[in-house]
């Protein structure tokens, strides 16, 4: 799908301290995949600039965020599997 050095999978809400840590430690060009409560980042409008952002569609739909998911690339579980294999490295925050 894309060239990604490190894929960061974030399932914490934006208020969780680990969400900040994830943002701090991402390199420009890394990928960010939002899952679980992590998709709430879409609602805050504070997506990182320098990165490709993906969001797991069933989690986005559960939280009623389908209409603003356009700021990120929506992926299903099959695409999530592909992303984890294409990235050189995966970190689950």
């Amino acid at each position, binding site marked *: 799908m894309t060239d990604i050095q490190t894929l960061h999978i974030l399932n914490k809400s934006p208020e969780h301290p680990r969400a900040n840590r994830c943002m701090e430690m991402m390199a420009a060009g890394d990928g960010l995949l939002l899952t679980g*409560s992590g998709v709430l980042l879409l609602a805050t409008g504070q997506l990182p600039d320098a990165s490709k952002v993906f969001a797991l569609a069933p989690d986005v739909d559960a939280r009623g965020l389908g209409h603003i998911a356009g700021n990120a690339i929506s992926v299903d579980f*099959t695409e*999530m599997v592909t992303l984890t*294999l294409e990235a050189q490295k995966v970190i689950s925050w």
Partner: protein
Amino acid sequence: MSETASETFTLVITGAPYSSQAPETALGFAQAAVNAGHRIDRVFLYGDGVHLASALCAPPSDETHWPEEWSRFLADHSISGVACIASALRRGLVDETEQKRYELPAANLRHPFEIAGLGEWVEGRIKSTRTLYFHAGD
């Protein structure tokens, strides 16, 4: 990477069902990986994740029974599901061997889960293309 290359995954689940979404997300991922022709080498339950291997959960009938769904998936695809022994003993998850060893009144480990040490995680990590972690969110 070619479309047909088969890769292997080790999945580590550290969040409990009915407390976190970790086992749910992990199952969605595992099913998609298997459907795409990849192999799940093993699933390792760690920390609070060991509760997924309980034989005694009885959620309301209109809610998904995550331990049952996971057990069926593991059995259907002959995937090894391992609960970390140190996490399991502290949290009250035991098979018959541990029941006898610690003289406990019952065993509650759901088939086909097994109990073993962190070495299973280390081995999975070495052998698999990717090791992914499914933690509790919030």
